[in-house]
């Protein structure tokens, strides 16, 4: 009686894990753009504020003293397009996003609280036209 539901749960677990793992991964390095981000207590500086559409790697280095997070937000400034958290001081972590052309916002959140610092627009151009 106990075994059957368990087996179902186990199978469901594995299936869900595999299915979600199979979401197409992006390939940084090959055709993607890498942008370096420096997160400090007061600012969030990007090495470039625009990139061609497709796969973009944000390599976020924490130069501050508090743990930080980095967000890519949609044009409304609210919807999360991509987020990387748990970037401790002295650590650098990558956020890989696959983005369509348009306007986005980037922001760092040192201390993991509030609206964050260094919020700035980020433009994604159409890689097919130019």
């Amino acid at each position, binding site marked *: 009686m106990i075994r059957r539901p368990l087996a179902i749960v186990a199978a469901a677990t594995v299936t869900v894990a595999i299915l979600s793992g199979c979401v197409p991964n992006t390939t940084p390095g090959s055709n993607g753009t890498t942008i370096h981000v420096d997160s400090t207590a007061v600012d969030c500086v990007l090495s470039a504020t625009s990139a061609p559409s497709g796969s973009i790697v944000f390599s976020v280095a924490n130069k501050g003293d508090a743990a930080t997070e980095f967000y890519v937000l949609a044009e409304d400034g609210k919807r999360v397009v991509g987020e990387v958290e748990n970037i401790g001081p002295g*650590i650098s972590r990558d956020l890989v996003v696959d983005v369509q052309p348009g306007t986005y916002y980037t922001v760092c959140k040192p201390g993991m609280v*509030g609206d964050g610092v260094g919020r700035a627009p980020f433009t994604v151009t159409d890689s097919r036209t130019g």
Partner: protein
Amino acid sequence: MIANLLIGLREGLEAALVVGILVAYLVKLRRRDVLGRLWLGVGLAVAVSLGLGALLTFGSYGLSFQAQELIGGSLSIIATALVTWMIFWMLRTARTLGTSLRSDVDSHLDGAGWGLVLVAFLAVGREGIETALFIWAAVQATGETTMPLLGASIGIALAIALGWLIYRGVVRINLGTFFAWTGFFLIIVAAGVLSYGVHDLQEAGVLPGLHSLAFDVSAAIPPDSWYGTLLKGTVNFSPATTWLEAAVWVSYTVPVLLLFLRALRKPNAPVAPRPAASDSALTTQGAS
């Protein structure tokens, strides 16, 4: 270093506590033979997480943000379901222990023993990939500074130490009290995991309402403070909680807690009859 230490502690704490309780449970049932399987589940989760994390960090493929949130969110919700099942199963087994033959318990555990292994696997693996990515990032930084890796390692070691302390603490209290308190604690943990999963799915855009906050006490309980870390690491308390998270938390906790209390009160409840005697036993020796 402290900031990295707190991240390691937060990511490892909940898993360490759940595994600590599982081990105490098996020891109390005198089923140390199942412990091997349990550690296998834990080891497997650690190995898979570290392996995947290394592949994603050093390999040529990254994990898209949406995929990571979807994995985290779905695993959280499955983990909640499993832990809930386990709480009630533990209670039922405890009752069998009091009323029928030992062999009944044994046959029960053979089927469900693997369930416990799955719980241990999920408790560790749920946030395992995120933790592994954090650790490997700290490893990558060692070219410049070893402080992040040192901090992260101490944090995780601290989490494991706290899990061991919980084990030492609860393994001493009598069986009836043990089930009441670990059950209660696990329900609160499971509720936190569920609302955390909902938050993940809100961030991934699968569920709405990411910016409709029910409350925001970040000023009083900063997420990067030690107490904010402990609250987040144990019961997944988020200082800025959305309405949907709060609603899901309440609609899980209230009915499950009521069912749990009703099950506890049944006349032939766990092993030792639990009137005032067991309660006073708890206050004298169970506080640790």
